């Protein structure tokens, strides 16, 4: 029983639209996207990612100041004290499932930490590291 081609096309378009609107993704897909942006042969490196995350970059804060050096646990906003849920996807499944949201927070937080946007390579590195943190 084959679906009518028109139905199949409509379903495909609807799915594509839904995906584009919700920007639904997995952490691995987001990492792959950043690797593609960073250039051919680029691969996220967990060690570099951890180093970036836990080091200061010329300003007052490192990522780890709010997210903790091992972001499998709750962190705390540096100025407001508000609790920040774990950043590692294995400990907080909603992390890095929305490309727009991930970009928004990279934009804001890289500016606070490094005074600039992070490069696609740096984002891929951090994502690679966060995905190595397992239960």
């Amino acid at each position, binding site marked *: 029983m084959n679906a009518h081609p028109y139905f199949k096309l409509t379903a495909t378009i609807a799915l594509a639209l839904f995906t584009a609107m919700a920007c639904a993704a997995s952490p691995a897909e987001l990492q792959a996207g950043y690797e593609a942006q960073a250039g051919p042969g680029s691969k996220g490196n967990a060690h570099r990612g951890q180093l970036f995350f836990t080091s200061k970059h010329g300003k007052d804060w490192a990522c780890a100041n709010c997210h903790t050096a091992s972001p499998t646990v709750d962190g705390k906003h540096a100025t*407001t004290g*508000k609790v920040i849920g774990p950043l590692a996807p294995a400990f907080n499944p909603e992390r890095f499932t929305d490309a*727009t949201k991930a970009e928004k927070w990279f934009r804001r937080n890289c500016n606070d930490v490094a005074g600039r946007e992070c490069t696609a390579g740096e984002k891929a590195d951090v994502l690679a590291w966060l995905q190595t943190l397992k239960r």
Partner: protein
Amino acid sequence: MATLIGAVLAGSSSQAQTINAAAKYQQECAACHMAYPPGMLPAASWTRILDHMDKHFGTDASLDDATLRELSTWLPANGGTFRRVREAPPQDRITQSTWFIRQHDEVSSATWKRASIGSAANCAACHAGAAKGNFNEHDVRIPK
């Protein structure tokens, strides 16, 4: 009849916009701190705050253009509705408002600095119902 339908449609659409803006306010602002009641600052303060979201009290809290436009209408429109809110407080900080300082004059500076409180911006430390807009002084519990 057409006018009536038009009015109903216009009404429901502006109501939908309000709900949407309130949800955006929660989503974007309450990610880092309590969604302070819009009425606690005058419209001019909200406009200034929204104009500098990339330098928001020491952090980059920049918004996408669509959200910024939405909140730039909604927040000033709902600003200044609290009883004593008239002038813009210094640095557009709620906690620097004359009414805020007077309301909290019995709280010592050591109390504000307790680890359980952190700063005057942490309303919910003592006002458990703050996120729901309850600041009734009979419900205040100052943590140790």
